[in-house]
């Protein structure tokens, strides 16, 4: 009996070990690369992110559902009553935040694309070429797929002849006295400036002498701006000019000063005046600083555009060794006094990069004592309110669906903000590659043309966009054949499926891109519609996507009947996560072995 029990005692152990080994083997088998990227599987346009920790602009909310419809947030809250068929993304383990708003940017070239790629969906520009601002203002009112952050801009800044802001090669209309203020402000208003930016900088904090507007003129421009209904913000770098600008009635200061540490009493004066401050610690604290250096180490270099790399590598001559500490201390004290603080980077000045530096700024604000919610608010709702930018900076009903999904718990650690799972701009998923967003030539996913008709075959084997070609299993070692011809305005495909392969095919393929197999984004299209007839056998439409697992392409079969028939295949019926990304669409015969003949006409993707 003893020995029997001994034997029995061992068998469950061996069984359990066996089961564990089996599961272990299964768990370590290779998976397709693309499948591991959750962003590939996030839904677009009308969808819900469910059971996510959401930062709504003010506080973190556990277990929220956020329902996005037509580019806006339709509902956000706990356990929403969502429609059954609404595509949803499980947000568990992630944090959803409003698209970031950078409160101090100078934009040019790829700035807006670079910003968006790092989750900055709105840029508050503190002076740029008015022509650049004018060219990009239109896009911000469109709720549409875009590759750029929305731009709000002061346009041209007010400064003295030869003063700060005139050194960038962009023509600047300067001021010499208070009597020019009203005309100057009206000119900015005509150009479309969203607010007025004034430079009050004599270089003293940098041991330089720079011509500057005098206090009287600064006060006059602020008053003129207010008279025209525009806000006025002031560039300062000393405590003294900061106090003066505040006394003149400025709405905001777009830098914190670094010449001396503010007293508690003065800090209270800023708070009482209700002025907001955009500290721009990113340019105050040098790029060698650990926060920024760490961020760069944790960032995939392939995500950086050429301009981002260039500006991040730059250094201010001389730098701000001690000034950085003073600036940091000032932020601490202003915060303690209750002054409104807006996150801003002053990119793309030397040592910063558009978009990416916003994540560095969040780290620096956290270091200055801000909690995660406070730092994120400074980068979203507080920034939106300070500059009067509507519909942005919050996750709330009616707000634009500018959203960033970040891996992990952001409340616990705001320095995770750069670990982005997905970005939506106006409800559209942003493709986070330099190729499409950074303007550098690469095999990128191209947007689909507006037309839906792929081919009517009226003029031969031609597509109205992209190109047709033949495809057979000869590329995988098979010997099936295909012949194509156009007869009576329809494509005639005949051939033979040869034995010898497990997965034989032969037929035609349409590649929508300008280059062969270039992926094209057909988001918003739902159906592949085509007319067909044939020998009654089963055929297949194979969808070749940019991101498909190893193995055969996702396939939907159809029968080609004797009489002409119009067929529709729903894109979502293809067993793939990204049916809207199409690099090729093949109409093929597969098994059984033997001759086949079918015709195709009026192919549409609609």
């Amino acid at each position, binding site marked *: 009996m003893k020995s029997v029990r001994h034997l029995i005692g061992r068998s469950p152990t061996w069984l359990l070990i066996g089961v564990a080994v089996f599961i272990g083997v299964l768990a370590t*088998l290779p998976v397709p690369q693309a*499948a591991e990227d959750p962003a590939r599987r996030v839904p677009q346009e009308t969808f819900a992110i469910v059971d996510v920790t959401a930062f709504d602009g003010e506080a973190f909310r556990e277990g929220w559902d956020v329902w996005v419809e037509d580019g806006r947030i339709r509902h956000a809250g706990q356990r929403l009553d969502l429609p059954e068929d609404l595509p949803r993304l499980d947000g568990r383990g992630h944090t959803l935040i409003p698209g970031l708003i950078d409160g101090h940017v100078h934009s040019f070239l790829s700035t807006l694309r670079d910003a968006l790629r790092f989750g900055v969906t709105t840029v508050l520009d503190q002076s740029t070429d008015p022509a650049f601002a004018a060219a990009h203002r239109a896009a911000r009112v469109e709720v549409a797929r875009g590759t750029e952050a929305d731009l709000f801009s002061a346009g041209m800044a007010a400064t003295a002849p030869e003063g700060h802001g005139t050194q960038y090669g962009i023509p600047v209309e300067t001021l010499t006295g208070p009597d020019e203020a009203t005309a100057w402000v009206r000119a900015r208003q005509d150009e479309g400036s969203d607010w007025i930016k004034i430079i009050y900088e004599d270089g003293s904090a940098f041991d330089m002498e720079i011509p500057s507007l005098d206090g009287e003129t600064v006060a006059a421009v602020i008053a003129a701006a207010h008279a025209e209904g525009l806000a006025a913000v002031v560039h300062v770098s000393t405590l003294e000019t900061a106090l003066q600008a505040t006394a003149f009635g400025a709405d905001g200061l777009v830098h914190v000063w670094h010449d001396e540490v503010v007293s508690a009493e003065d800090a209270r004066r800023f708070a009482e005046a209700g002025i907001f401050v955009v500290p721009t610690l990113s340019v105050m604290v040098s790029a060698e600083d650990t926060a920024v250096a760490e961020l760069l180490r944790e960032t995939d270099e392939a995500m950086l555009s050429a301009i981002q790399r260039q500006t991040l590598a730059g250094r201010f001559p001389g730098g701000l060794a001690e000034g950085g500490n003073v600036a940091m201390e000032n932020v601490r004290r202003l915060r303690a006094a209750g002054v409104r603080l807006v996150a801003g980077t002053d990119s793309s000045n030397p040592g910063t990069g558009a978009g990416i530096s916003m994540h560095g700024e969040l780290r620096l604000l956290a270091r200055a004592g801000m909690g995660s919610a406070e730092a994120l608010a400074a980068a979203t709702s507080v920034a939106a309110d300070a500059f009067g930018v509507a519909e942005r900076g919050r996750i709330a009903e009616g707000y634009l669906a500018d959203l960033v999904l970040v891996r992990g718990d952001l409340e616990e650690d705001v320095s995770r903000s750069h670990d982005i799972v997905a970005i939506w701009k106006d409800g559209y998923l942003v493709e986070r590659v330099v190729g499409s967003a950074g303007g550098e030539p690469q095999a990128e996913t191209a947007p689909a043309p507006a037309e839906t008709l792929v081919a009517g075959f009226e003029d031969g084997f031609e597509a109205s966009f992209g190109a047709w070609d033949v495809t057979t299993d000869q590329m995988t070692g098979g010997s099936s054949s295909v012949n194509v011809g156009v007869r009576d305005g329809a494509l005639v495909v005949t051939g033979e499926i040869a034995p010898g392969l497990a997965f034989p095919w032969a037929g035609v393929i349409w590649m929508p891109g300008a280059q062969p197999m270039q992926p094209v984004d057909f988001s918003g299209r739902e159906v592949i519609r085509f007319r067909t007839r044939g020998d009654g056998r089963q055929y297949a439409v194979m969808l070749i996507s940019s991101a498909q697992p*190893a*193995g055969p392409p996702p396939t939907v079969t159809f029968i080609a009947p004797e009489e002409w028939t119009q067929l529709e295949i729903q894109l979502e019926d293809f067993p793939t996560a990204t049916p809207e990304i199409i690099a090729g669409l093949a109409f093929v015969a597969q098994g059984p*072995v033997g001759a086949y003949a079918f015709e195709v006409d009026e192919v549409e993707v609609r």
Partner: protein
Amino acid sequence: MTPGRRFRIYLLEARFQVLEVLREPMFAIPTLTFPLILYLFFGVIMGTRGVSLAVPTYVLATYGVFGVLGPALFGFGAGLANERDTGVLLLKQTTPMPAGAYLFAKVMAALIFGAIVVAALFLTAAHAAGVALYRWQWFALAGVLLAGVIPFCALGLAIGAWAGGRSAVAVVNLVFLPMAMLAGLWLPIYMFPDVMQDIALALPAYHHAQLALKVIAMDAGQSVPMHLAVLVAETLVFLGLAALGFRRADGFLMRRSR
């Protein structure tokens, strides 16, 4: 008998069954290596000539079915008939062991051998052919393959109940090899003439293979409930046939244990 003791008898019998099969290399080696050799040849050597991984992926599912089919059919069909002929079954019948323990042990042995074959095939496919599936697909494919042990054990039981010990191996082979062939386990079904494709519809291995191929989206596009319904119906038919066979023979497995 206490439930605890009964459970021990089940496990003990299962352990002995596995040991018995392992000690029969004439059985163990072919059932373990045959699917693997076929996969190496058709899946890895022939299948990876092209750029696509379609072939090694497809045949992974079908040779997986082939791999679980063998142990189930042979263990039940040939094993049972043999044990009856040699009197081992009669000996077991004289012990207080419940008939259920005997069946359980045979199913467990088939499952364990099936799992070894599946694991070996998966590792070969992944590392020799470069097949990559989503994590859920690996698990689902393994699950579907192993669940197929049930109908095949039922079929084996029916054969074992009717065939004599000498003829059982021949009968099992007569069922095993043609079914594997006709169900499209070696070569895809659509490469056969229509008549043979119609025959396939009657075979449990065909429906099991289609379910396995469904996991990797390479099936013929028929409905899952249809495949399941056929498999369940055929399993019941096999069990009924087995019951008739045993009633005719000696009543073992029909006797209620006390």
